[in-house]
C-alpha cells in the first residue's frame, strides 16, 4: 500500500498505476573551435523528476487527493513494497485528473513531481 503524506494531510490511492522518473545531467559541454572533442565542466545532476500516476475508486477520493497535491508543500511517499518509501517530492508541473473512459467510474490523477532533499 502506498500513502502520500504532507505531514498533516494524507491520502491513499487505490493503486499507483505508473511511476516514471528521470534525472537531467547538468554537465556543460563546451564546443572548442579547434578541437573535435568538447571540454567538459562537471556539475551535479538534477534530482529525480517525472510523473506519478494514481488510480482512485471514487470521484470524492480522487478530488481529496487532488486538493492535497495542490497545496504548496513537500510530500513524502510511504510504501511498504517498493524502494520509494521515504521519497520526498514537490509538485513541479501539472496535476491532471482524468475520468476513466470505459467504466465512467474510476479516476486517474497524473502529477508531475520533482524530488527534493528534505
Amino acid at each position: 500500500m502506498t500513502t502520500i503524506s504532507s505531514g498533516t494531510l494524507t491520502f491513499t490511492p487505490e493503486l499507483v498505476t505508473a511511476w516514471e522518473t528521470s534525472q537531467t545531467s547538468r554537465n556543460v559541454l563546451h564546443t572548442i573551435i579547434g578541437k573535435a572533442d568538447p571540454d567538459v565542466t562537471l556539475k551535479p545532476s538534477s534530482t529525480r523528476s517525472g510523473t506519478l500516476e494514481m488510480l482512485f475508486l471514487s470521484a470524492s477520493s480522487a478530488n481529496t487527493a487532488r486538493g492535497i497535491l495542490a497545496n504548496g508543500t513537500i510530500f513524502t511517499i510511504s510504501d511498504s513494497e517498493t524502494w520509494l518509501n521515504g521519497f520526498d517530492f514537490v509538485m513541479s508541473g501539472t496535476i491532471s485528473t482524468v475520468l476513466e473512459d470505459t467504466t465512467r467510474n474510476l479516476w486517474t490523477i497524473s502529477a508531475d513531481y520533482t524530488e527534493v532533499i528534505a
Partner: protein
Amino acid sequence: MTVSRHNIEAWVGTQKIDIIDAAITMDESWSPYVQASLTTVVDADLIDLLDPRTGGRVHLYISQEYGDSEKLSALTAAYSGDTIADLTTEWTGQDISAISATYFTPFNPSFSNKLSRLTSLYGGGSIADLTTAWSTWYLYQISELYFRSYPDGIYNNYRRGFDLGIRSRSINVGEGTVSLELATDEALLQDYALVSVNNFSPASLQLREVIKEVLALIDGYLIDGITDATIDADAALWAPGQQAWDYLISLVQAAGLRLYCDERRRWYLVDANFTQPGLAELWSVGTIKSADDDIDRNGEDWFDAVVIEYSWTDVDGATVLSYDTAFVEGFTKVKKFTVESNFPGAGAAQSILDRAISRGRQLNVTTVSNYMVQPSMACDIYILGTPTENVYIKAVQWNYPSDEMTVTTRLPVTT
C-alpha cells in the same frame, strides 16, 4: 578533452546564499573595477543582511578544480590505529604536498603530441625544411609547443575571492528570487561627497597622502607603493557637495595615473601603463569557444582626441571653466568629458587618450572559465589560421552556470 569542475559560493556574513546564476566582470576601464550581478533564492533569514542601505557585503568565491581530493578520513582509514608520528615516519623526507597529491584523483591526464603530429603538419617536407622553419628555436621550445600541458594536478586548482558591496537588491516576489548588484568600493567614493560649509584642504600635497586622507572616510586603505605625484594647491580644494570620487579622480588623472580598488578591497594607485604579472595563454585548440575581432568607430571605447571641461564655482559664485585637451595628429574622432572640479592642471586628457587609443581594436574571446585571468595581464591568443595576438586583457567576465568567460583585450598603452 579537458574536464574540470567549477564552483561559485556566495556568503553574507557567516551565511551561505544559494546562487541560481551569476555574472562577474572585472574591467580595468570601469569604475567600480569589479561589478557582479547575482540571482539567488529568497531566504527570509538572510534578506535583511542583503540591504544595500546598511552597507551589506557579499563574499564570493569562484574556483576551478581539475580533480577530486579525498578527505582527511582517507588517511584515518589508511593508517587506522597508527599515531601521527607513525605517519611522519612513513612519509619521511616528503612534503605535505606529496601527501595531497597522492590522495588526489585528477580528471585529466597530461600528454604530449606524438611525432606523427609533425609529420602531418610538414608532410612531404624533409627534416631540413623543419630545421629551416625553426632555425632560431631550441629543441625544448619545440617540445613545449607540442606539449598539451593539460592541468593535471592539485596545483592547477584555482580559487578567486571577492569582497563586494551590495548596490541594489530586487526581490521578485512571484518567482521567489533576489537579484543583487555588487561592486567594489569605488562605488562608496561615488556615494560620498563633502558635507561641510567650507572647502576642504588636504594636509599634504602629495597625491598618495590626499588619497589616504579621503579613503579613510570610507574605511578604505591604499596599498603602499612608489607611484606618486605632487598636486597643485588650488586643485587640491574639495568643494562642499563635490563627489569624493570626482575630487580624487581629477587629481589622479591629471597626474596620468589610475586609482582602483581590487576585488579584495585593496586600493592601488598605479601608472596608466600598469600591467599585472603573469601571462594568460588562450588557444583555439585549448579552451576557446568563439572569438571576434572588433574595431568600432561608433563605440564609446575608442577616440583619438579628448577635450575635458572642468567646471568650478568660485568663491564669488561665478562658474569658472577650464579645458584640457589631447589629440593625435590628424585626429578624426573627438570625445568630450565634463568634470565638476577645480582645474587640476593639464595631463588628464593625455592619459585618457593614451588608454582610449589602446582600446581601438578589441578581441572578444569566449572560453571555458579560468579564474587566474585578470585585467591588465598580458595575454597571448593563438587561433589557427590567424596571426598570434600578443595583447593585454582589458576586461574579463565570468558567467555561471554556463562556466564560460569572455575576455576583452586591448593593445599595450604607450605613453
